[in-house]
């Protein structure tokens, strides 16, 4: 499937489904090292994205992602709202009004998204945040695209890397966000934002399959 606006809408719809489905899991992860709201926030945010998509018909993937950025920014709140808002906004900007996304553009958009998260949140890899899912995803996508993979393969590589990255946050000590207050007590728990990042990228691959 081409990464056109239809894909984008399908992706966002699948994101909303994933957040609804994993709402309790994300709440539970956030309960352990945060304040129990990440699942609720993401679920509320992507429901708002769906509402917005029902109202206005974006004509390009970039437009769909921009609308997503605005909805997340205005409905999620907390740390995740501005971070995901920035991520989607930067990706949208990179994509411009292209009707369709090439593997290289895709890798670039993911990188822009990650850079947006880092620019806002100042987290480094290893700080036990969503950056630990974004960064391997960006690297895997870049490598796949450079190796000539198609968009589906690039997305699958990104999703897999994000999932591994999320799992790899388990042994880390959090140094950013609310979990950082726990210090060593954050060890042994998975970062909720890294998990939601993996869900978003897995949905992107799913929509392209």
């Amino acid at each position, binding site marked *: 499937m081409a990464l056109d606006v239809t894909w984008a809408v399908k992706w966002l719809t699948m994101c909303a489904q994933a957040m609804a489905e994993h709402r309790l899991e994300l709440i539970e992860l956030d309960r352990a090292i945060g304040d129990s709201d990440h699942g609720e926030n993401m679920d509320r945010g992507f429901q708002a994205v769906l509402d917005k998509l029902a109202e206005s018909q974006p004509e390009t993937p970039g437009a769909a992602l921009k609308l997503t950025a605005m909805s997340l920014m205005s409905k999620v709140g*907390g*740390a995740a709202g501005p971070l995901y808002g920035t991520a989607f906004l930067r990706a949208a900007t990179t994509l411009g009004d292209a009707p369709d996304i090439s593997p290289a553009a895709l890798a670039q958009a993911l990188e822009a998204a990650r850079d947006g998260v880092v620019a806002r949140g100042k987290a480094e890899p290893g700080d036990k945040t969503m950056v630990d899912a974004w960064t391997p995803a960006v690297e895997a996508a870049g490598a796949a695209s450079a190796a000539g993979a198609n968009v589906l393969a690039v997305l699958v590589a990104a999703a897999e890397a994000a999932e591994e990255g999320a799992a790899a946050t388990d042994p880390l000590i959090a140094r950013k966000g*609310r979990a950082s207050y726990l210090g060593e007590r954050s060890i042994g728990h998975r970062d909720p934002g890294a998990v939601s990042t993996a869900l978003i990228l897995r949905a992107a691959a799913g929509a392209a399959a």
Partner: protein
Amino acid sequence: MKKLINDPRAVVDESVEGFGLAHADIVAVSTEPKFITRRDAPVAGKVGLVSGGGSGHEPLHGGFVGLGMLDAAVPGAVFTSPTPDQIIPATLAANSGAGVVHIVKNYTGDLLNFETAAEMAQVEGVEVRTVLVNDDVAVEDSLYTAGRRGVGGTVLVEKIAGAAAERGDNLEAVAAIGQRVNSNVRSMGVALTACTVPHAGGPSFDLEENEIEIGIGIHGEPGRHKIPMENADGITDRLLEPILSDLGLDAGERVLLFVNGMGGTPQSELYIVYRRAVQVLKERGIMVERSLVGNYITSLEMQGCSVSVLRLDDEMTALWDAPVHTAALRWGI
């Protein structure tokens, strides 16, 4: 989970609606997007004060909107900072042309959302200054964390900066006094029980029957460490020690002592903590000149308390004493 609510997702809407009905003489409530303003906002010539954060900390912040304190409060979802699309119109509503001070508790989410809102408000022509509150000494290695959290000190910043704005201080001066309060206040909290976030349906962390969490924040998040239950004097000593050593108070200095309930602790217990805190301060030759005891910055129905100590000077004392007329703090009027 047993709560006096209808729908976990309507808690903030319905509760803010009720708050607006009960205090229509003081506040006005905007519902879409949600924020609370002083009924007479913007007050001509006055610097506006806006604060906000996740809900579940009531009376903070809505209960502090009114004469001598905040011009607007922005409630997020429970324990979730509000969004720029709420903060921006609240900032505009608070602006009389003299600029607006954002009082922001130091949490990643609050920072990011207020930062974005401030930027956008500046674009709309409002001068914005931000006072970051980070008084929580429970956060030790602030280099390796998101930094100290804003907790009990927030109430004191809002009161004192609010009084400065009310007497006509300009934007820089109001921000400066807010920062001065923040620099001179330290806090630390303890939880005897967790709380239950309505949408989560279960307790925010696990505590054994005989354990307490030392160094909790106000978001139902776990604290610095768990210890076996102790008596009130022992717990008070544990809270005060890092506050006093961090604040470096000398004998003869004057302070405001604030014992804050986390929501589910009987008032009588807060006074037992207060009593001990006064004893300890007295032993060190520190003079408690002003006091506040009660539930002012809470974590839903959590049992526990926080202690805040503010080093006072004459100006801060006078601003503390200045008239205030809000739902939760009122005197002199």
